[in-house]
């Protein structure tokens, strides 16, 4: 106990690099002339790329660091573990953040956002997300979660003279802090009952039936709140539509993909590692939340007329789908549902980023970003329109969007296999509702237009092109070889 802990720097390299680059960008920006501000963005891209590369050596084994030794009775426990699950999410976070940064380049320039601060905040949040995926104790989880959230508030508020932006930030902030407070209260109860903060040890402790069950149940339920907020599950979803709409579109993309993925990994870790023995309590709760979430999300999405808001509700609904495997977990084999969650989160990230890429593009030219603005896009921008259509087909889970279809099959498997048929049926109905608005949007692009009302064609910048192309490419590839993401 006296010696300093040895730290596995290889294991923590990725978040570390991202954090350092974040600081570097902030400093660098102050030395950049106004015309060269974009360099900060490219540095961020490079930093994320490096972080991605640094993940490569970690493939194949499990690395642990920040450990406390065991003493006969208790096992040793580590706070930071990089295993396969962690790696998948870290890779996802890095890739997703890369796309978001690429999408941001033009946005930052066009809307005169402070580029140093913007990329600093974004990368800070990313470093939090990377850490979250690796954290294995309550403290690290909470801190990492806050590291994801806090910069996000600022990102949303960064359009300083836009009242919508600041309103969006305030809503995000308030919902976040209240959720966090609730979660912390729950975690404090869990800690109080079990006396442990490491997830593995909590799991061991929970096996003891003499613990105070009501307090534990309360604690576990409340602890879900913080992650529920992150993934925008009902009833923690209220911020999502308003915030997505008020924030710059790439930030919304970031919130809906990277931040949400972080929330899911946190939730998955907490539930399957920490609270696994307690699945009989949280399982049904998550199932109910999942059912309500997808239903509310889809129903609300039906009425939307603006692209970002629609995507916001759709991402609420998609969160519901992602919760389904967790909600159908049963005692004794909790880990069995993890692959489905992972697969769906990854698939969702690909398809949602694909949609957001094109929405960002259109948003640059059409302030309102209403669905009507997409009319005729198929004619003037066939590739972008196809990318969006394909992403929407994936989200709807209908061929040609095979990626989404396979992801849905994976998710459906869990409740069917684990005997939560009702949840599967609710999801089935929701898939149908969801199809309606995705399709409606997709057709708008290909609807016949009056000849005189030619929609303008856009000059697509290099970075946008890469973002759209990369997401489309990923979606297409994964449609053909879905095994890449389904095999976990």
């Amino acid at each position, binding site marked *: 106990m006296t010696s300093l802990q040895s730290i596995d720097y290889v294991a923590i390299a990725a978040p570390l690099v991202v954090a350092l680059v974040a600081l570097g960008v902030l400093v660098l920006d102050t030395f950049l002339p106004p015309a060269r501000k974009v360099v900060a963005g490219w540095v961020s891209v490079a930093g994320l790329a490096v972080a991605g590369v640094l993940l490569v050596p970690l493939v194949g084994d499990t690395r642990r660091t920040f450990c406390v030794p065991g003493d006969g009775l208790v096992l040793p426990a580590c706070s930071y573990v990089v295993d396969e699950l962690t790696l998948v999410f870290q890779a996802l976070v890095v890739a997703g953040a890369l796309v978001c940064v690429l999408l941001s380049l033009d946005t930052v320039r066009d809307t005169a956002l402070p580029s140093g601060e913007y990329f600093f905040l974004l990368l800070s949040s990313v470093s939090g997300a990377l850490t979250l995926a690796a954290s294995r104790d309550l403290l690290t989880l909470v801190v990492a979660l806050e590291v994801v959230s806090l910069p996000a508030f600022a990102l949303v508020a960064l359009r300083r003279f836009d009242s919508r932006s600041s309103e969006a930030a305030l809503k995000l902030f308030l919902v976040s802090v209240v959720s966090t407070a609730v979660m912390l209260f729950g975690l404090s109860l869990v800690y109080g009952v079990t006396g442990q903060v490491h997830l593995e040890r909590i799991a061991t402790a929970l096996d003891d039936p003499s613990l105070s069950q009501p307090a534990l149940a309360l604690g576990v339920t409340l602890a879900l709140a913080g992650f529920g907020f992150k993934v925008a599950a009902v009833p923690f979803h209220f911020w999502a539509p308003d915030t997505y709409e008020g924030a710059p579109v790439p930030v919304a993309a970031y919130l809906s993909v990277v931040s949400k993925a972080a929330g899911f990994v946190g939730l998955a870790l907490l539930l399957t590692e920490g609270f696994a023995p307690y699945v009989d309590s949280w399982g049904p709760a998550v199932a109910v939340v999942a059912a309500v979430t997808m239903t509310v999300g889809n129903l609300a999405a039906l009425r939307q007329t603006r692209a970002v808001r629609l995507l916001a509700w759709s991402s609420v609904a998609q969160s519901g789908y992602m919760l389904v495997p967790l909600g159908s977990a049963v005692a004794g084999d909790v880990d069995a549902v993890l692959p489905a969650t992972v697969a769906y989160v990854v698939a969702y990230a690909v398809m949602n980023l694909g949609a957001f890429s094109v929405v960002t593009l259109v948003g640059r030219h059409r302030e309102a970003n209403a669905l009507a603005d997409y009319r005729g896009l198929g004619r003037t921008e066939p590739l972008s329109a196809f990318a969006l259509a394909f992403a929407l087909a994936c989200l709807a889970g*209908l061929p040609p969007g095979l990626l989404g279809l396979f992801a849905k099959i994976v998710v459906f498997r869990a409740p069917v296999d684990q005997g939560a048929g009702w949840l*599967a049926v609710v999801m089935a109905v929701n898939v149908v509702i969801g199809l309606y608005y995705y399709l409606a949007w997709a057709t708008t692009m290909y609807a016949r237009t009056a000849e005189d009302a030619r929609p303008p064609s856009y000059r697509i910048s290099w970075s946008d092109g890469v973002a759209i192309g990369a997401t489309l490419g990923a979606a297409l590839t994964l449609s053909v070889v879905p095994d890449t993401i389904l095999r976990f």
Partner: protein
Amino acid sequence: MRELLLPLLLAVPLVGSLVLLVAPPRRAERLAAPFGTGVALVTFVVAVVAAATFPETDVPWVPSLGLRLHLGIDGISAPLVLLTSGLTALCMAYLLRIRPEAGRLRALVGLLLLLEVGMLGTFVALDLLLFFVFFEVVLVPMWLVIAQWGDDSVPGGRRRAADVFILFTLLGSVVMLLGILLVGLEAGTFDMVELAERQGAGLSRGVQVLAFLALGLGFAVKTPMWPLHTWLPDAHTAAPTVGSVLLAGVLLKMGTYGFVRIALPIVPEGAEVVAPWLGALAVVGIVYGSLACLAQRDLKRLIAFSSIGHMGFVLLGISTLTPVGVNGALYANIAHGLITGLLFFLVGAIKDRHHTAQIEVLGGGLYERMPRLGALLAFGAVASVGLPGLAGFWGEMLVLLGAFDPADPLPRGYYLVLMAVAGVGVVLTTTYFVRLLRRVTQGTSFQAWRDAVLLRDASPHELLVWAPVVVLVLVLGLWPGWLLDASDPVVRALLGGAP
């Protein structure tokens, strides 16, 4: 080489549609129809070779899901594959000269080819999940065909029809997916051949019933079974001619094929429990569809409702769980595909010429104005009525025979009642078709139509496109052994008897 045949069958139209998608729009627009015809013909040739050699392919695709690219063709899928590829080729040939009034041809041809991929895939898939994937592939293309190239006489009508179509079908197929997963996960495999051989062994009765219900819902929506038919009349009314032809000719068959290929052999106990209900709904569909036709005012809707009645026969045959009934169902399936395909071609031609399908507006005198079209319509109607000597008869006759003597565990008296009611349906079917002929083809023309210069009789091109269908209706009517020889051993095997 033989292993590549079925993948080739799917790849040809798929590549064709992708080529159209990426081809330069201007030129592609001009060459779309000839290109599509060529692709469809090549597909048809491949289908013929496949139907003659019965190849099989089995390679893993998504191991983590247990999804294998297991394709095969046998006596009950071969006719459907031929029907699909044949009708698609005819639709393409039809588009060579007769174009939909609005919309781009390139996209339409591309979508039809994509549709063909889905339809063919459904019929050759031997893996449950693969079947599901192909089952879903057809949805979006068909939806687009209706929504984009459909009839716009009612503002927003085609869009609503397309939406109802896809939402209904999707609801069914998602529930079907649940059934597939239930079966696959309980049995530990998604391989249809293996599952069929097991005849439900290892699946508890409860699981079987549940799975049959879930699977059946998906198939029943597609078929469509009363009361899940509501999407059909609107979809048909709104769809362009080629869309209607393929919708009625092939798409509906995917549901009944699913019953025979999946629901009956894989969960036989479930089938036994649900079959009486299925039979009852089928019979209600027969009578209901016929009655609706009797009062119908729109020609296309009438044919659509007649499909509900005819598919009711198919379902009744399936619900008997006997080789006779199922053979009949499959025969009626093919026959309905041909006859209703022809009828939709004809009605489409009539509608294109008159810009209406309202029987009252059309008035009588089609024999007088367009004798060839009138004669063909009469032929189609008589075939649809189930006249012996034409394709429509054998299927319905065998279905009734099956219902006369249903499988052992089923209540015979109950099925006799079903058969009798279905018999009433036969009479009603006759009635509405002869009424239709009486009101449309016979009598004298309205002056307005007589004055219209553009009302030409069927062109040689149209006749050429329709001729194969007419000939097949005749051939299948005169020589039923052709199909029954192929389907009978497979059906017996699927129903668990000796082949």
